[in-house]
């Protein structure tokens, strides 16, 4: 038996840069991003319940583990690597995660940050309950979450003031 592979040429914007890629029709966005060296989004549950692979697709948070790479065509993807040009110019969400030590092993952190950023773009002044509700799709096994919720509220304040 031989497997036939078909590919599609897609053009999309990844972290601000237009890219044209020849992708396998069955390839997942997560694998394509990681093959490009963007390994911030992580593989974990592979069934869009843990949030470790969260990236923003046209601004919306999506699980890259269950999004086909062909979906990239004509769209914009932002990953955690796209947020800061240097450690001195971190995004307010990244800054707040640092300040609150809102991570331990850090494996969930890129997805958690992208999910939080999408929330604050949609709702600049979320209540604590809204933050909790929004992050229900992201699992952290290390921290017990408290520092993460605090960090997101702190980032909201910084973004409003900034």
């Amino acid at each position, binding site marked *: 038996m031989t497997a036939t592979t078909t590919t599609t040429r897609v053009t999309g914007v990844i972290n601000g840069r237009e890219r044209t890629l020849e992708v396998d029709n069955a390839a997942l966005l997560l694998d394509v991003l990681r093959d490009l060296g963007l*390994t911030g989004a992580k593989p*974990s549950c592979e069934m869009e319940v843990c949030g*470790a692979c969260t990236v923003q697709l046209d601004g919306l948070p999506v699980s890259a583990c269950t999004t086909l790479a062909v979906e990239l065509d004509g769209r914009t993807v932002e990953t955690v690597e796209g947020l800061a040009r240097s450690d001195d110019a971190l995004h307010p969400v990244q800054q707040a995660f640092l300040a609150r030590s809102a991570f331990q*092993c850090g494996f969930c*952190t890129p997805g958690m940050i992208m999910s939080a950023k999408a929330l604050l773009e949609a709702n600049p002044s979320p209540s604590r309950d809204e933050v909790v509700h929004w*992050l229900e799709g992201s699992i952290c*096994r*290390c921290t017990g979450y408290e520092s993460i919720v605090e960090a997101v509220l702190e980032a909201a304040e910084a973004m409003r003031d900034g």
Partner: protein
Amino acid sequence: MAEPRSSGTSVPRLDGPAKVTGRAKYAVDLDVPGAAHGVAVRADRAHARILEIDASEATALPDVLAVVTAASLAPIDVRFGHISRDHPALAVDKVRYAGEPVALVVAETRRAAERGARLVRVRYEDLPAVIDAEEALADDAPLLHETHPGRTGDEGFHNTGGTRLAGNLCAENTLGWGDVDAAFEAADLVVEGEYRYPMLYGYAMEPYNATALFEEGALTVYSTAQHPYMVRDDLALMFGLPLARVRVVVPYVGGGYGTKSYTKVEPLAALGAYATGRPVRVALSVEEAIYTTRSDGAVVRARSAFASDGTLLARDMDIVMNSGAYSDNSPLVCAKLANRCFGPYRMQALRVRCRSAFTNTTPASSLRGFGAPQGNLASELQLDEAADRLGIDARELRLRNLVRPGEQILPGKRGVDADLAEDLRLLTESLGWGEREGVGFGISASDAGAHPTSTALVRIHGDGSASCALGATELGQGSRTVLSQILADGLGLPFEQVAIVQSDTGVVAYERTTGASRTTTLVGRSLLAACDDARRKIRELASELATEVEDAPGGVVADGEHLGYGDVIRRWFGSGGEVVGSAAIRKHGEFEQLPPFWEIGASGVVASVDEETGRVTVEQLTTVGDVGFAINPALVHGQDLGAATMCLGAALSEELVYDGSTLSNPNVVEYRVPRVGDLPHRVDQILAERRDGIGPFGAKGGGEGAGNPVGAAVAAAVGRLLGRYPRRLPLTPERVWRLAQEAEQRETETVRG
């Protein structure tokens, strides 16, 4: 003598910038040029003889390089294991659990390897399987291991119940003293019950993965291992290589919690590389990770005898652990469960028997606090029940029986290095005990620290800065930051002048393990000793340059002149140079008596129950971190809340469930870990710093303790609300609802009667 300057402050984590920007590289992120991909063919049944493995269709695929089986690898013995060498990386002759690797398909791409794995045909002859641990110990049970695997003889595991093993008995530990039967005879109250602690999956979010390559007669493996040196030893034995020619490198690890202790997926990658001559990467899915390791479930039959004034007279504990198909670390869990199931209370008589049973299920091993949460549930709930029945306050009853500072929990072992009564007072005050409804709390003390072997190398460089190479793994607990603080203080340098390299057995000094909450305490001490050695060498060099030399912070005073380390090095060498200090600690001197320290747990909750649905809500969580001295208080809080949250999961929702002989919930949808919405409304974290530990500046370990009593605490809170103590975790809504119905029914009957 070093003074704490950086230590004691919450300096920001060194790994922070890398982790919030996505730059931090985990083993799963590594790109080894030319790597092929290995995918395991897994058994679809629990117990069967392998008659034939037909790989012809798979090997015919263009991108498949090889299909590797135990038979194809002969004469290599594919078995590994640190306590018993009974665990084949690929099944030999038969499979012992559903999900066991039978063959490894190595291909150019992951997808091709997966496709190949689906095409490997295995013909089996089914054998009767046994899933339940107590059934496995019956005389007529199907036998998993025809010849008992025996023990490796490692001194660190000598007390793991390895004598007189037969049938499916994986380990048995007994301990006790006094006349137990007489004490029960004389008791005013006997509390008796059977308690069940679930099998758990640690769900470290980065599933097990490894990439292996052979080069220049040496094996290099990049992996998710917590204990790279233990993995090195297993691989060296498997391939007949000297230890010097096996290098295990561990980058950032996406969660450990004990689940990545000891050898897991590394042999599969190495065997694939051996067979193909290519670097081979094996990266498991979460489902495969669940088929790799879980924790030991336990049934605890407990009896406790009390005098009418609440004095605990005796305990009798009979425990059976479900340990799965292979030993892995279960014999040590068994020994620890025996030690951790009755205290930290004084009693005149004790009888403990703890047995670990082989069953046709996923092999069990370490998970945070192992042995302690399983035993603590029964131990603490019986105190609560006794308090109610004797009409004594549950806190007072504990205060009457808790061991005092210095008192031995286990005869001949180190006396307890903590003030448990004071911890209990802090805990119950925070919880509003006596004033609020739905309060539950518990205390535990674990013989922690493991075997105290640790070595460290400290290098002082020509500019006076210093680095250290050590084998403790950064799992997210923050060891890189804490050990840097200790290194800075050990040399009297600013935090910004030190750096640490970790977990590369080709580079760093030997470390036995990263577990048992030992790193801050034991590695911290070997590191301080290495700093002392480096400073002594600096003084030796300086005394060749000057007549009078005295120790000074960050350097020496030589003939009245302050010289930094860098000044001494530059003047002595003339050009370049560095000074290397080294040290080791071992089970000797201060560390002769085990355990090196007792890890304390003092945690409690305030909970509410919706009696309509059975749903339990944790309103408040309090942890008391009795860590002697918090080198980095923020990191201690992080560890305590993390441990407590994990055990809230075990208390309320987490349980691996076997339906017949297959696991019915091998995924994180049906195996539900705590989510952000489960976060208690109020979290109170208290530190108790009495400088009573053996670690740097009086520190002792944390990271497991806060979780250990949480299961019992939640069960006690629910029990107080419903008028009946639950004896089985997790407290799923259904179980709590049923308990509420039964309690209500009983009440009605009492009223009628």
